[in-house]
């Protein structure tokens, strides 16, 4: 058993036994060695299920929405991406930070279950260390700004409009509209998604290129300045759509227009598109 797992169990036991929290969200082993899905521990006798290994791919924070109205505290393990997701939910007014106990973990990256290589989302991660926590496990790992994470976007920008269109139509023809990208996304936290507003009819139910694009583009715009770059959408997509390329295009443009911005590093900063500034640039008006 690795050092982190031992630590995690120790902490979880203490928190649960003291009654500090009523549940701990972490990870456990699935049936296969490359699977370490989220685990929800509510009593001391379940603590030995908790593990930490290189397959803890899924985020823990989105599950906080399930207990939005719970009065007791929830404990959760959080890496850089999870901690930013927590900030995202707090900033969006979804959860109350006072009801969380955040056990930060300094993360050295996860492996993709299929390829066994470092997961793409971890290769491109700029904040492996938690940005908010009550307690920290491990020593902070080196961080870098990874400008190469915009490489795919830069390549796409070189293409002509027709080539770009061809590229994205190919991608969106693959979409099966399972909405895994939306459901796993911490920035997708609307109580009712535009997709389900049937009476208004913004999103039709047919699976075709037009509807798939409406979905993908509306979602991308809707999370535009709130995307924390956790990469969960692209990881969850069963059809391998390069969803991060869309998100990063928006982030890149916003960095250029409004100055460098990384979402949810703290809860005080207002996202660029949500900010009202008298001296805002108004080139388009």
């Amino acid at each position, binding site marked *: 058993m690795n050092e982190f797992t031992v630590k995690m169990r120790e902490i979880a036991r203490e928190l649960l036994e003291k009654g500090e929290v009523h549940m701990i969200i972490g990870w456990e082993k699935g*049936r296969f060695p490359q699977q370490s899905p*989220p*685990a929800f521990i509510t009593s001391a006798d379940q603590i030995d299920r908790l593990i930490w290994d290189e397959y803890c791919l899924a985020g823990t924070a989105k599950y906080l929405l*399930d207990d939005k109205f719970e009065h007791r505290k929830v404990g959760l393990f959080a890496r850089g991406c999870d901690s930013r997701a927590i900030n995202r939910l707090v900033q969006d007014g979804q959860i109350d930070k006072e009801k969380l106990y955040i056990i930060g973990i300094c993360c050295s990256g996860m492996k993709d279950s299929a390829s066994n290589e470092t997961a793409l989302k971890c290769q491109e991660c700029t904040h492996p260390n938690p940005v908010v926590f009550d307690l920290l496990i491990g020593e902070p790992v080196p961080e870098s700004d990874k400008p190469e994470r915009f490489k795919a976007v830069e390549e796409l920008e070189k293409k002509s409009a027709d080539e770009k269109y061809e590229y994205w139509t190919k991608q969106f023809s693959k979409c099966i509209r399972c909405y895994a990208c939306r459901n796993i996304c911490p920035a997708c936290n609307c109580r009712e998604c535009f997709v389900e507003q049937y009476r208004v009819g913004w999103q*039709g139910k*047919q*699976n075709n290129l037009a509807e798939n694009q409406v979905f993908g583009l509306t979602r991308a715009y809707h999370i535009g300045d709130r995307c924390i770059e956790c990469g969960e959408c692209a990881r969850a997509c069963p059809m391998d759509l390069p969803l991060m390329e869309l998100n990063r295009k928006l982030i890149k443009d916003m960095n250029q227009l409004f100055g460098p911005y990384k979402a949810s590093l703290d809860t005080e900063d207002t996202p660029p598109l949500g900010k009202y500034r008298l001296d805002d640039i108004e080139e388009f008006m």
Partner: protein
Amino acid sequence: MKTITKANMMDAIAILAQDAQVLVPMTVDGISKFSLWGSEGTLAFSAVNTLLPPKDSLFPQTEKMYSYQVENQTITSLDIHNEAKQQIIFGIRPCDMQSIQCMDDVFLTKTFVDDFYRVKREKLITVCIGCNKTAPTCFCESMGGSPAGHGAADIQLCDLGNSYSIVAQTAAGQAVVEKWQGLVRDEEGSVPEVSCTLKVDAQGLPAQLSKMFNHPIWQEVSRKCIGCGTCTYLCPTCYCFDIDVQNNGNEGYRFRCWDSCMFSDYARMAGGHDPRPSKNERIRNRFLHKLEYFNERYGKNLCVGCGRCLTKCPVHVDITLFIDKVKEVSSIESVQL
């Protein structure tokens, strides 16, 4: 036994493609699925099962049912789209063959025959390839199937290394094999034995589950679920659909499209009431439909053990682990609840 070399099989498919749409396993843009023979992509006959099942060929994700035109509140034209082309699914795996049997039960038996499905089904020929290797996630044997083949396929092939053995199992299959005169030969050989490494005990599940509607197990298994439609949309047997209309001015069409019981709005009724308000009830419905209700109605599992959902669920909700868990619940405990 009758065999055909792998090289000759390509010619055999080309012969069939002259007067039918032949769908073969292919990898297209990184996604393995059944695609039209000759279309862009790489053939994937040696993969175990494809990521996308061939379900779409009988039950498309979106299907136009009829188109209409209206003038002064009178219908001036009405077109029902219930015609089908001859289709051949070449290289379907035994699990997916079983899924067609499940869909046949739903769409063709017990009082209602669904015409949109029927016309396609009647014009479908299935050529099944037995699996001589299984993926770690395959568990068809535990669900009543066998990796070796499926008795309902029109033709059953088995991979012998350099060739396939051929058995025509129906008259339609026989007619196809006759078209391959000159390509098929007689050869000694034996079909390799295969077995799934993943095994679950599904014996007695329907009876046990029927007593577990209010069991705390649902709370436990649904906790992970994020409520997406991945498991149901990749599943070869999930057959739920919704019907809606696309109206543009004086014309339009009615269509049906896949729906998923995992979606939050699936069971929502007019007026807003939702009998399955949380993922707890939704996961319960999915698992009970697959493992209990379908058995009660049609005498078979609605899970064929293809392993797609447990591979692709973003948070690894695993139906096999669920079955294990149900088996751990003692029968006394389930009766009391």
